[in-house]
């Protein structure tokens, strides 16, 4: 079914249909050890170097629950305003797949540790309207290993000659957070979906339970979307899997709304299925249909005892909750003097903590924001990495700002310094030294350049003498050229005026 060419625009789609969404987010916890054994969870180890009989599912091995993971789950639940189960169990989700060593996943089924909560999100900008997203549940489970398909195109299993299995990830603790149906005005639905995931990510980071970096798979999102005519019951939904960037969340939901609208308006019906998200084309394609879905044969995990968090423990954990991200943001926005729009840009870029840390290192908020959302964002985007992985630290950015403030760099030179740091040339001071990026602002050196420029362009000099200050720029341009951009433009202007109008 090729409907791509006939897709209505988003506005056309929502002119007729109302979307209903449901988000399922998996968060990989940042515990030191795995969910059910003592193996390390460190990222990037040699394949199969962080495994033991338990996470390899060897015959006879048994799981033991990681207390810190339960603690994190409870804290996430509390931060999402959930009730915490007085008694809950793990369950086995049975299905066969080579990257799952026991051929069942130890998860939670009908007895999640946290349930029935909410999270407020706002879109920022001019409207300060908030949307309350209902949380159905948050439950604990273990991650699977990773399959690497070799010999086929683009690493897909189709056409591969063989597969390699890495079980380092097997058994890493996951928390799955499932929303209730999200019903918001159609026009903002994709933005709300994105705002929800953004807010959830901030919350997880604030809790310190995970770095929640989507590009590392530490936070993964599945988006359920259905359409209905206003007043109708819920339509059939599709579940778009692995929508793993904030931008993609908005795009995938938008696409699914348009695609489903096309199907429905041409008299078709939506099939309940999973769909694959294609980041490159911005489209989804059909995955497994409901009738092909596995019967997971859930039953309570007999190798584990029930978890019954005492109310005292829950209250102790509640006392450790950080300031909610929305409150923190409001506080920081005021302290930094940002407009709503500026603050939204910072948050959407995932730069809140970076700006915070840069300010803590002594930079102005505006200066910090300028670099993280400007030069650093541009380079990170080019390389397809997160801001924090671009190769520059908040301390570096603060140092560049300090050099500007003390007059050693102008904006143009500072940009070159940042470029140098991002290129791996060292600290800002090392880049300055290596590239010889020093602002020429001593009157002797600058004076020569000024005299040369005046001599070279007598007609311009004449205009300035005649009071035409707009002509100063032409001389400064020449001075900058002759000093390779290292002239202090402000002082150069002063010297020109001294000579020609003094």
């Amino acid at each position, binding site marked *: 079914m090729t409907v791509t060419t006939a897709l209505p625009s988003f506005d056309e789609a929502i002119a007729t249909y109302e979307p209903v969404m449901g988000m399922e987010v998996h968060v990989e916890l940042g515990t030191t050890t795995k969910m059910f054994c003592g193996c390390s969870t460190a990222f990037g180890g040699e394949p199969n170097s962080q495994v033991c*009989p338990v996470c*390899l*599912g*060897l*015959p*006879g*091995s*048994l*799981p*033991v*629950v990681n207390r810190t993971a339960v603690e994190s789950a409870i804290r996430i639940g509390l931060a999402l305003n959930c009730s915490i189960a007085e008694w809950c169990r793990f369950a*086995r989700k*049975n299905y*066969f797949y*080579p990257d799952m*060593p*026991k*051929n*069942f996943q130890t998860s939670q089924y009908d007895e999640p540790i946290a349930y029935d909560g909410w999270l407020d999100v706002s879109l920022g900008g001019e409207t300060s309207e908030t949307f309350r997203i209902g949380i159905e549940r948050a439950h604990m489970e273990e991650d699977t290993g990773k399959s690497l398909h070799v010999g086929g195109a683009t690493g897909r299993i189709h056409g591969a000659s063989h*597969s390699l*299995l890495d079980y380092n990830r097997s058994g890493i603790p996951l928390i799955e957070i499932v929303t209730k149906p999200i019903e918001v005005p159609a026009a903002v639905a994709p933005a709300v979906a994105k705002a929800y995931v953004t807010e959830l990510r901030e919350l997880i980071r604030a809790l310190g339970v995970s770095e929640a970096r989507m590009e590392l798979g530490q936070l993964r999102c599945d988006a359920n979307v259905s359409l209905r005519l206003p007043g109708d019951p819920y339509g059939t939904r599709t579940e778009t899997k692995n929508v793993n960037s904030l931008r993609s969340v908005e795009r995938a939901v938008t696409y699914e709304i348009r695609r489903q609208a096309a199907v429905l308006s041409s008299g078709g019906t939506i099939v309940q299925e999973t769909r694959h998200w294609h980041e490159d084309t911005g489209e989804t394609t059909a995955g497994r249909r409901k009738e092909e879905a596995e*019967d997971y*044969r*859930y*039953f309570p995990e*007999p*190798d*584990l*005892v029930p978890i019954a968090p005492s109310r005292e423990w829950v209250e102790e954990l509640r006392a450790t909750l950080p300031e909610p991200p929305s409150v923190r943001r409001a506080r920081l926005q005021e302290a930094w003097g940002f407009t709503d729009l500026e603050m939204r840009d910072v948050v959407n870029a995932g730069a809140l903590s970076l700006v915070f840390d840069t300010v803590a290192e002594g930079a102005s908020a505006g200066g910090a924001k300028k670099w993280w959302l400007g030069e650093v964002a541009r380079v990170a985007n080019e390389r397809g990495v997160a801001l924090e992985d671009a190769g520059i630290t908040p301390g570096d950015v603060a140092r560049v700002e300090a050099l500007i403030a003390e007059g050693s760099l102008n904006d143009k030179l500072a940009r070159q310094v940042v470029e140098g740091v991002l290129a791996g040339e060292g600290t800002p001071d090392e880049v300055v030294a290596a590239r010889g990026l020093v602002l020429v602002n001593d009157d002797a050196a600058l004076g020569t350049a000024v005299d040369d420029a005046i001599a070279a362009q007598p007609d311009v000099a004449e205009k300035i003498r005649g009071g035409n200050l707009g002509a100063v720029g032409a001389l400064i341009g020449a001075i900058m050229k002759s000093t390779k951009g290292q002239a202090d433009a402000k002082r150069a202007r002063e010297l020109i005026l001294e000579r020609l109008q003094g």
Partner: protein
Amino acid sequence: MTGMSSLTRARASELATAIKNGEVSAVEVTQAHLDRIAEVDGTAEAGVHAFLHVDADGALAAAAVVDQKRAAGEELSPLAGVPLALKDVITTADMPTTAGSKILEGWRPPYDATVAQRLREAGIVILGKTNLDEFAMGSSTENSAFGPTRNPWDLTRIPGGSGGGSAAALAAYEAPLAIGTDTGGSIRQPAAVTGTVGVKPTYGGVSRYGLIACASSLDQAGPCARTVLDAALLHTVIAGHDPLDSTSIAQAVPDVVAAARRGADGDLTGLRVGVVKELGGEGYQAGVEARFNDAVALLSKLGAEVVEVSCPHFTYGLAAYYLILPSEVSSNLARFDAMRYGLRVGDDGTRSAEEVMNLTRGQGFGAEAKRRIMLGTYALSSGYYDAYYGQAQKVRTLIARDFEAAFAQVDVLVSPTTPTTAFPIGEKVDDPLAMYMNDLCTIPSNLAGNASASFPAGLADEDGLPVGLHVMAPVMADDRLYLVGAAVESAYAAQWGGTLLEQAPALEGTAQ
């Protein structure tokens, strides 16, 4: 304690004392048992065939370590130097572990089970790994992929199951101690039909870490021996909390050795014994009932107060068990998929992983394993879960309540261990339901998790084969089993002039 034959006939407690006193070396004791194994164990085709793997070098080396420790004047633990037969469903880092299945043939686990580790730490010498029904599923050891074990009382008969290998090794004097595992009776039923002692401790009393799971909520490893005191000594070695097993109980182990010693005095005055009304009558062999009634009379004579107790839900135990067990089996056995260890069939570069999995499971599992995987898969399926698994769990709760109510009136419950004595090999292989009936009396304790045991109670008149007395005690009251078992044992020893096993016909050595 001289002569090889007396070494293999000696009790574990006697051997340990003799080794400690320097009357015999652990190496000599071990060698005597290795010789006995070579003499009588035979092969899949003939002989007892209790062992799937004998590690002569490893055993002798372990024995030598005990001798060195003694020579160095180090303190020896109570069973140091005593040989033991380990059921091949418990992982050992130095020996293959097959669980009686072709799908694991040749697999060498990279780790020791907690039980194996505790045995080694106690200086117990592991002779080898014993035969069992595949993944401990069966009551005759005929479901082993490596051929049946034969009952030393009569080599044409089954030694019980699934732990037939461990029980037969004891009855054939190949080892004075053995470890079994009991999911529905796999320690107790083999003990009953071989005239030996088998104890299923309280669920959670002995670590399951390294016990290849049959049904996780029912499995329990336990001691097997020829005498009650020996079983108690072994119980003490393997029992106790293990942080690697979440279902292991973090409480002190009941003092089973003291109970066994006290019981040997033969005074049960004040003990309240309940005869379970529902476990007997129709379907029970006359000779089994007769010996059971004798045992009940004996308990009275020893001072116990005997009453009849009704446990109405025990009737549903077998049905509930055969829903819960296969459900857990279907999930536990899913991991045997050829991807990481064990058998791999058809991996010739033309087949997908899924095809290799299917081929391997098709060829690697035996009929009973497949039967239970299919039953369990069905019972857990969406739409059937509530009617099958869900209902069975309710029955399980009701059975646990029956026990609670009964133990409010009495200290222990008794029944025959099995409805019949050892039946001929091949008689029930084509009739799974008849085979399942073997575990009628033993299953309720697995469902409720309480402790129970089988002790020799004489020979059935009609076939001259051993009958077991089944004793059930409350959760974490394992000591009561030993109290009763030792009292019965000492009274019968006086009556019979020795152990029941001494009445067994001489075993013809197949290797001679």
